[in-house]
């Protein structure tokens, strides 16, 4: 259906120009756009139906929030008032005029800490009031200062349309080598999860030691895989901005907070997920703008004590993408996440537009100022293999991304890697997985499959696996209680000591708990880089993260660059 253009009138209609015909056929006109309907919440961030900010504190308890007395609180209000807003600064912070706070956000001479001292006491409506004053460039200015970690990073999806664990491993290895700090996977057939999660972990550690991985599943299995050390973090714990949507999903803020504490108890990094548009998409926006409801989600995450949030509309991107100012609102939601001192995994992770120009413009507000994770899912497989229903960026965009980094001298977390290095890690990841499967008595990975993994692009390039046997094997992994440590031992025993060592280092973080720090990722030396030891110290031109030195030299490389020394040659 989407291959047909919107009807441009029947043949008998008024005559149109060749120009109009040409424009009608442009990909951007395959995208959908709608008018706003603020009464129902179909509006990005500027709505007369959002409440005005207000707060009243009595005896250390918030008794009025955004015009609503405590007796009328819904459970979101209660949770936010009791757990998310810093009562000590609340009245003072909310008394500061919104334009003053907005100016502090863009003023480089005001430090990040100084802003946080105020923003941690703001109500949802006040936060909205502040960001509403900012245009998209100001939002980017503020993001540059307010994001928690100094050095930006990126995250990838590594999935397979056939849930082929060898493909996931090989693409994870390549993704890790190209620079992604985090890798996530999910499944078509959920029962495949243990094998695919093992593939992802081993592939990641074969590509670059210290990359952390996760497998998006229903909550119980996802937690189980995390506790066993087969995955390294968790992300897909969804929260919503209205009580009615929570109730429809048989959940509450407290149940989500309980789940978060289960991860924390094992030293496992985790973040929540939310995004503009989800409530209106489900018809339960309660007449509030998308951004207002998203700010409630962000505060909910803050109140639950998790270190971060994946937001930026995520799977509902088609909704803000279709209303005026929607992509500005998406940038603003990322900024609010930063303003509450949460790690932000900033979206750019779902199929967004038919237009290459729109796809690019949509990611500029995160890519240019930098984010903790610029994409919360750059597809490290072709979109046809992307089991998160497609991303805004996929493997076809690798070289474009690297070129944009080089053009604008911006660090988007990736780098160009020479083909032979990529082939080497893909091969090694597949061979390591082959050895692990053999040791675990899982269905054999043939040499042909290893060969295919080395040179493949998509799942179509791999020999078919016996799905039933694989599923039996996957079940046996769960039944036998295989843990990450078992996998480390096997890797060590089968001659993959380096991968075993990398994996063990990742597991050690669970004991130290260092990955629970805000925005923590592991660098190549397994040192956690987080908001406490790599704090964002931006204070205007010449400060903060600067793309210089070795890293800049690395990003100057592309697939084809003519040598200055000998213009008849290329360097790469």
């Amino acid at each position: 259906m989407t291959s047909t253009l919107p009807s441009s009138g029947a043949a008998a209609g008024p005559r149109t120009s060749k120009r109009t015909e040409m424009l009608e056929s442009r990909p951007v006109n395959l995208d959908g756009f709608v008018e706003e309907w603020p009464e129902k919440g179909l509006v990005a961030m500027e709505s007369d139906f959002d409440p005005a900010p207000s707060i009243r504190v009595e005896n250390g308890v918030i008794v009025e929030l955004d015009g609503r007395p405590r007796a009328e609180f819904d459970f979101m209000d209660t949770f936010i008032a009791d757990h998310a807003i810093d009562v000590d600064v609340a009245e003072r912070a909310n008394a500061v005029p919104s334009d003053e706070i907005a100016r502090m956000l863009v003023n480089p001479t005001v430090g990040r800490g100084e802003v946080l001292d105020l923003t941690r006491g703001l109500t949802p409506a006040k936060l909205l009031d502040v960001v509403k004053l900012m245009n998209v460039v100001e939002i980017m200015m503020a993001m540059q200062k307010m994001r928690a970690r100094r050095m930006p990073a990126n995250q990838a999806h590594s999935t397979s349309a056939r849930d082929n664990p060898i493909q996931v491993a090989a693409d994870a290895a390549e993704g890790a080598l190209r620079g992604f700090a985090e890798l996530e996977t999910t499944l078509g057939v959920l029962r495949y999860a243990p094998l695919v999660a093992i593939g992802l972990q081993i592939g990641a550690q074969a590509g670059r030691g210290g990359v952390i991985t996760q497998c998006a599943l229903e909550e119980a299995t996802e937690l189980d895989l995390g506790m066993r050390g087969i995955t390294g973090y968790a992300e897909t714990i969804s929260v919503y901005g209205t009580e009615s949507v929570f109730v429809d999903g048989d959940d509450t803020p407290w149940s989500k907070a309980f789940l978060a504490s289960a991860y924390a108890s094992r030293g496992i990094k985790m973040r929540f997920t939310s995004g503009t548009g989800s409530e209106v998409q489900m018809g339960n926006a309660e007449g509030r703008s998308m951004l207002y409801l998203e700010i409630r989600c962000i505060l909910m995450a803050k109140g639950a004590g998790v270190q971060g949030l994946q937001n930026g509309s995520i799977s509902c991107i088609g909704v803000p993408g279709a209303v005026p100012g929607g992509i500005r609102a998406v940038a603003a939601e990322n900024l609010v996440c930063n303003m509450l001192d949460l790690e932000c995994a900033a979206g750019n992770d779902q199929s967004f537009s038919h237009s290459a120009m729109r796809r690019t413009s949509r990611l500029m507000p995160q890519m240019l100022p930098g984010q903790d994770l610029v994409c919360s899912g750059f597809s490290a497989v072709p979109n046809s293999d992307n089991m998160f229903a497609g991303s805004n960026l996929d493997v076809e965009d690798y070289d474009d991304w690297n070129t944009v980094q080089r053009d604008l001298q911006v660090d988007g977390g990736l780098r160009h890697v020479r083909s032979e290095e990529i082939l080497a890690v893909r091969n090694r990841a597949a061979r390591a997985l082959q050895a692990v499967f053999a040791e675990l008595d899982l269905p054999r990975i043939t040499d042909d499959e290893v060969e295919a993994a080395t040179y493949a692009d998509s799942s179509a390039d791999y020999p078919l696996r016996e799905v039933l046997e694989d599923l039996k094997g996957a079940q046996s992994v769960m039944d036998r209680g295989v843990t990450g440590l078992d996998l480390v031992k096997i890797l060590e025993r089968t001659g993959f000591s380096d991968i075993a060592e990398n994996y063990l280092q990742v597991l050690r973080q669970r004991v130290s708990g260092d990955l629970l720090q805000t925005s923590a990722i592991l660098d190549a030396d397994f040192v956690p880089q987080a908001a406490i030891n790599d704090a964002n110290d931006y204070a205007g031109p010449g400060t903060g993260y600067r793309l210089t030195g070795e890293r800049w030299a690395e990003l100057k490389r592309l697939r084809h660059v003519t040598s200055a020394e000998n213009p008849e040659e290329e360097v790469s």
Partner: protein
Amino acid sequence: MTGPTTASLREVGPAARGTRPDEVVIAVSPAFADFFTRTIVDVPHAEVLRQVMAGVEEQGVTSRLIRVWDTADLAAIAHTGAKLSGSGICVGLLSRGTTMIHQKDLARLSNLELFPQSPLLDAAVFRGIGANAAQYAKGESPEPVPTRNDQMARPRWQAKAALLHLKEFDRIRAGVKPVEVVLESAPSLAG
């Protein structure tokens, strides 16, 4: 397209529990063939009903139409219909085209077949949905109706779907019980 292009559904009384084991209930949402006349991709509601009912009839099963007033949640609509259906099988329809086959013993949030991507549902799919519902009613095991998947449906249709959903919500009449309706079609123009 042959057949009527506009349909109206006339209320004939409260929806009762069916007793015939050979009936499939078709339950429509508050705005179906009412505020709205077409699905998200302009399939007329009259045609949607004609095809679903034809699919049921071809299998030798009868269909009964009801309208659910107090919710626009597809699972709730289809489950309500299933509980009123003599066979326990119901086809639930939202105005934008999203469709579900439900069975009375299933949990509300479960279903027999779900067709979530409304932009990809055309007349042939609706025909197949009717045929499958009737076969479930007969205790047969049809192959699920094949559907397509399209990652780019999100940028094109997600917001319009949300808008249609909101409009549908607007037509909800809280506390009003489901009603039995009959199809009164305008005369066919084509053919």
